[in-house]
Every structure is written in structure tokens, then in C-alpha cells.
């Protein structure tokens, strides 16, 4: 029983990790439909910047996190301008491949600058909490809380604020958006910047649990793309549900079948859900 509970909490924490990365992508992929495969790269870059800020600049954890968020937001906005904006009218596969090119570049650049070895960010709040006979580290609690907060914030932003609506409007019809007076250039960059900042914040929160390596983004990339489709394109609550579902499938699949096959089970879940609900969990039938 405690094993079950412990796994439950493990799954929640892992779901939080996936959700944090997926939420950053929801904006550019789920809403704007830009298949930004470089997102994993931004996430990874965020982790390295936070690590550098901590180790080399001697900043505190929070300032490191903020610094990394701002820096990655700028990089992401630049990316939108230089790569995705010119490709806005091209078929989907073109920005996708361009994004892969960017990912290759970021990975290689990071490896060149920081080396290929694992790095570690220390937990800002060390220690664990005991709950119902189950232990969980504060960092994981933080990740879970942050993912839920980010989800609520993002959903509010998209559904309730005018800027949120402009992002959706632009993604659905760029010319139409310009006709009503939306500065699509600004909105495009802003959206990427928010997505980048979310990636960096996620990375800074997750890195203490995991290690920092140039390939950490690659590992996440496929999963978070799957999560967004699983939850239903454009749906923020869908993304978070998708994230937790995937985490539960992996953890409990791993526990009751085999950890060797945990990833297989995760993707199998994706395949099964899409076979039954091709539009994802949270999307109305079009």
C-alpha cells in the first residue's frame, strides 16, 4: 500500500515535470501550430544558463532562475523573428525541419561551451516531506505546484485576457488578425518569449531532480509533443492532463509490468488514446 502511495506521488511529481515542459510548448505548438522542435533545446539551454548563473556568477537560486528565464525568452523571440516568421506560410514540415536545425545548433553550441558531461544544480530547498508514510522531496512538491500554477496562469492568460485572444487569433488567421489591428510581429515574438521563459523556468525547477546534459531536451521533446496532442491541440488543461496521464502510465506501467518497458507503455497509451479519440482528450470534435 505504501508502495502504491509512494508511486502515486512519484507519478505526480513526474507528471509535474512533464507538464512544466509541455506548457511552454503549448503556446507555440498547441496554439500557434508552430512545430517547434527546438523547444527541448530552449529547455536545455535554460538549465545550463541557470547552472552557470549559480556556479559561475554566484547568484541565488531565484535570481538564477529569473536570469535564465529572461535570457531564454530573448533567444526564443529571436528565433521567431529569424526562423519561424519567414516560414509562416510554408507547409508544416518546413518549420519543423528548421526547428530541428536550431536544436542541433543549440545542442552543439552548449556542448562546445559547457562540455558534454552531466552537471548538477543543487536543490534550493533540500530535504523531504513525509505524508501518509510516503516521502517526497520539497523540490518535487515545488515542481508540482509550479506546474499547476503555470497551467492556471496560462489558461487564464489565453482564455480571459485580450492578449491571449490575440495569440489565438493570430495563429488561426494572420491576415485577419492584422486587419483588426493586431501587431502580429509583436504578438509572435511575445508568444515565443513566453514559451521560452516557461521552458527555462521549467528547466531550472527540474534540473535539481535530474541532471543537466546537452541531450536532456531531446529526451523530453518527443514526450511533450505527444502530451500536447494527447491532451488536445490548443487545450491548456489538456496538456496538463496529458502530462500526468503519461507519467502515470510510465510509473505504474513500470511498476506492474517492467521499467524496461515504461517508455513503451507511455507511448502505447498515446497510441491507444489517439486511436479512440483522434482529436485528443480535451478537444471538441471539429
Amino acid at each position, binding site marked *: 500500500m505504501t508502495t502504491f502511495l509512494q508511486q502515486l506521488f512519484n507519478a505526480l511529481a513526474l507528471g509535474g515535470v512533464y507538464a512544466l515542459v509541455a506548457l511552454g510548448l503549448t503556446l507555440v505548438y498547441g496554439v500557434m501550430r508552430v512545430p517547434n522542435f527546438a523547444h527541448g533545446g530552449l529547455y536545455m539551454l535554460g538549465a545550463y544558463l541557470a547552472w552557470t548563473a549559480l556556479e559561475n556568477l554566484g547568484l541565488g537560486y531565484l535570481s538564477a532562475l529569473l536570469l535564465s528565464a529572461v535570457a531564454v525568452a530573448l533567444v526564443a523571440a529571436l528565433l521567431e523573428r529569424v526562423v519561424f516568421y519567414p516560414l509562416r506560410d510554408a507547409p508544416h514540415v518546413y518549420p519543423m525541419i528548421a526547428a530541428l536545425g536550431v536544436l542541433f545548433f543549440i545542442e552543439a553550441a552548449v556542448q562546445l561551451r559547457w562540455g558534454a558531461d552531466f552537471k548538477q544544480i543543487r536543490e534550493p530547498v533540500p530535504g523531504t516531506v513525509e505524508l501518509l508514510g510516503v516521502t517526497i522531496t520539497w523540490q518535487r512538491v515545488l515542481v508540482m505546484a509550479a506546474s499547476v500554477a503555470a497551467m492556471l496562469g496560462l489558461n487564464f492568460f489565453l482564455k480571459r485576457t485580450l492578449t491571449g485572444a490575440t495569440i489565438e487569433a493570430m495563429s488561426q488567421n494572420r491576415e*485577419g488578425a492584422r486587419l483588426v489591428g493586431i501587431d502580429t510581429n509583436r504578438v509572435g515574438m511575445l508568444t515565443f518569449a513566453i514559451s521560452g521563459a516557461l521552458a527555462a523556468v521549467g528547466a531550472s525547477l527540474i534540473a535539481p531532480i535530474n541532471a543537466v546534459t546537452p541531450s536532456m531536451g531531446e529526451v523530453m521533446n518527443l514526450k511533450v509533443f505527444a502530451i500536447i496532442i494527447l491532451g488536445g491541440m490548443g487545450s491548456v488543461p489538456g496538456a496538463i492532463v496529458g502530462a500526468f496521464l503519461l507519467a502515470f502510465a510510465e510509473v505504474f506501467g513500470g511498476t506492474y509490468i517492467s521499467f524496461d518497458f515504461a517508455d513503451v507503455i507511455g507511448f502505447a497509451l498515446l497510441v491507444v488514446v489517439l486511436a479512440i479519440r483522434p482529436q485528443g482528450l480535451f478537444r471538441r470534435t471539429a
Partner: protein
Amino acid sequence: MLDVQNLSVNYGHFRALHGLDLTVNPGEIVVLLGANGAGKSTLFRTLAGLQRPSGGSATWNGTPLTGGRPELSVSRGVSLCPEGRLLFPELSVEKNLRLGAYTHRRDRAGTEQELGRVYGLFPALVEKRNAPAGSLSGGQQQMVAIGRALMARPALLLLDEPSLGLAPLVVEQVLSAVQQVNAQGVSVLLAEQNAFAALGIAHRGYVLEGGRVTLQGPQHQLLNDDRVRSAYLGV
């Protein structure tokens, strides 16, 4: 006033507008007549800033409209109901309309009032206010497009075939709404296949053929022109 001088527009090698001259005076309704492919939509897209001209100029009260920045044109009071509607298909009807008032986003009360007027004009949209715009019937979508253009509270309203796909009763309503809006001082440039009705509310008109103005004049003159009558009025 809208002042178009010697305006030319190219699509690659193909020239769609050849040195067009046209004016819309304050408070006027001007109608554009022309066969398919005459260049009406091209003119509208250029005036809205969606298309860059290859020569000539178009100014609204002295400021140029042709900089390729449609978002600026709207804030200067020029609003287009485009061909093809260009709606946001997955957003609700109401969000589509509200976004039409994007340039007035600080003026909440004004937006609410305008929204009420649009719903008054198109009561069919009221029960659809929360439906995604893409799920509406063709004619209902056209209503949303017109409504969205009105929401910007323009000083110059550009309407590219607003009656497309609308039921006769609604066409009538739309045109009378155009008249109403005009009565409040808004200038209107209108393209219509439904030429008789359009000329009925217009002050002046232009006939466009092959990207050139071939005829222009006040309403009654065009209504009585033989060429216009045979080609556009079907009489």
C-alpha cells in the same frame, strides 16, 4: 478623404491594377463595379495594407495607407471586411467580434455598445455567440465578417462584396445598415456584384475593367448608363 493616385499592383509578372485614380470624399458611399477579376479585391487589399503596391499612392486624410502595415490602418480608422472573410475559425463568434474592436481595447463601454449594435443588426448571431466561427453557415460567417469590420468603428469602411452568400432579406438589412453607418459620417467604399442595390444607396460609383477605371460618375448617371445597365444590372 481617401485619395488614390496612379496606383499599380503586381502579382509577380502579372499587373492587376494599372495606375488607378479614385477618391472617396468624407461622408460618401462610393461603389465599385467590375466583373470577376477586374481588380476590386486587389484594390481593397492594397488599401487595407495587406498588399504592397508597385507604384502610386493611396492616402487617407493625408496619411499613406500603403506601407504594408494593415494594423496601423485600422488604428487610423480604415477597416476592411475582406473577401474570403478571414475570420478566426476556432474562436467564438463573440471573440471574433470583440477582436474587431482591438484598437479600442481601452474603451470597454464603447465596445459593449458597438457589440450590441452588431447583434441588433444580425440577430442570427446572438444565439451563435459562443459557437466557433468556423462552425457557422456561410452566410452567418459573412455576417461575422461585416460585424467585425464595424466593431472597429471606422471612419472609412471598406466592404468587399459584403452580400456574398447572404439571404435577400439580410442583404437588404446590410445595405440599410451601411446607409445608417454612413449617416453618422462614415465614408464607405463598397464592391458589389449586386450592382443595382449597391448603386441604390451610393453617391458615386466607379467601373473597373482589367485593372483600370473605365467609367465613373454619380449614382444616377451610372444607373442610366447603357453599358452599366447591360453588364452589371442585367437589364
